[in-house]
C-alpha cells in the first residue's frame, strides 16, 4: 500500500471542515443502544433460566423409557388375558356340549376330572393329616 501518498491531498480539501453529527443525536443513539443491550441481557437471562439441553434430554429419555415399559407390560398382558378368556370360553363350550350329550359320557368324563381334582385336594389334606397323626403318636418305625 502506498502509505507515502496518504498525506497527499489538495489544500482545498483540507481547508474545509466537515459538518458534525447533530448534538441531539448522541443521547438518542445511546438510549437506543442502552435499550438494545438491556433487551439482549433479558433474553440471555431467560435463556439461562431454561434447563440445560442435557437435562431436558435426560427427562425426555426417562419419560420415554417409562412409556415404553408401560406399553410393553400392556402388550405382554394382552395375549395372556386373551388366552385366559379363550380358555374359559372353550371350557364352558365343552361343558355345554357335554351336557347336551344323550349318553352323558362326556359329562361323566368332566365330572370324573372334577372329582379327581377334588380327590387330589382331599388326598393332599389326608396326607397332611396323616403326618400330623404320625407326629402325635408315640409309635416308632420298626426296621
Amino acid at each position, binding site marked *: *500500500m502506498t502509505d507515502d*501518498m496518504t498525506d497527499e491531498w489538495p489544500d482545498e*480539501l483540507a481547508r*474545509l*471542515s466537515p*459538518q458534525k*453529527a447533530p448534538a441531539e443525536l448522541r443521547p438518542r*443513539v445511546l438510549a*437506543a443502544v442502552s435499550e438494545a*443491550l438491556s433487551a439482549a441481557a433479558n433474553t440471555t437471562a431467560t435463556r439461562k433460566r431454561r434447563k440445560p439441553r442435557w437435562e431436558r434430554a435426560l427427562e425426555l429419555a426417562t419419560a420415554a423409557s417409562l412409556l415404553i415399559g408401560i406399553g410393553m407390560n400392556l402388550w405382554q398382558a394382552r395375549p395372556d388375558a386373551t388366552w385366559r378368556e379363550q380358555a374359559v370360553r372353550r371350557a364352558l363350550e365343552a361343558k355345554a356340549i357335554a351336557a347336551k350329550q344323550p349318553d352323558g359320557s362326556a359329562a361323566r368324563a368332566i365330572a370324573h376330572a372334577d372329582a379327581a381334582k377334588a380327590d387330589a385336594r382331599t388326598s393332599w389334606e389326608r396326607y397332611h393329616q396323616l403326618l400330623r397323626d404320625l407326629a402325635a403318636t408315640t409309635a416308632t418305625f420298626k426296621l
Partner: protein
Amino acid sequence: MGDLGKRLARGEVAAFAELYDLCADRLHHYLVYQLGSRDDADEVLQETFLRLVRGREKLAGVESMTGYSFMIARNEALRRLAARSNESRRRAEAAELFLEATHDDHEVREAAEELTMALARLRPEQREVVELKCYGGLTLAEIADVTAAPPGTVATRYRTAIGILRDWFSRTCHD
C-alpha cells in the same frame, strides 16, 4: 483499541458512548454524502450502532474499530439506497457537508460550494475513497477493507481522484 473492542463485546454502554465520540461525526458526514440527507444519515447512524450492539461478540477481535464502524455504516447506507432504488439518488448540498458553506464570508462560502462541485465531478467509487480518506480519516488499507476492494485499486482510485481535483482547482484558479 483492543480494550475498547473487549468492552464493546461485553456490552458496556460506556464503551459504545466512547465509540460514538470517536467516530460518529465522521460516520455522519460520510452518510450524508452517501444518502444526500442529514435526516437519513441520522437514522442510518443509529441503525449502525444498533447493528454494532447486535453483533458485539465479534468486536473483541476487531483491529480497527473505526474502519469496522464505517463498514457497517456503509452496508446500512447501501441497503437504504437499494430500498429506494426507484428514486433518483439525491446529492448532498454543500451546506449539508461543510461548515464553511454556511459561513458569513461570501468567499469562504463560495470555496465550499466549489469544492462540493469538484467532488461531485468524481466517479462514485473515486468520491467514496476521497470521502473516507480525507474526512473519514481512514488509511487506504482500511478503505480497502471497508469497500471490499483490492488495496491497489483503492490506491489507484485515490490517485486518480486527487489528479482530477487538482486539475479542477488549477483551472478554476486560472479562470
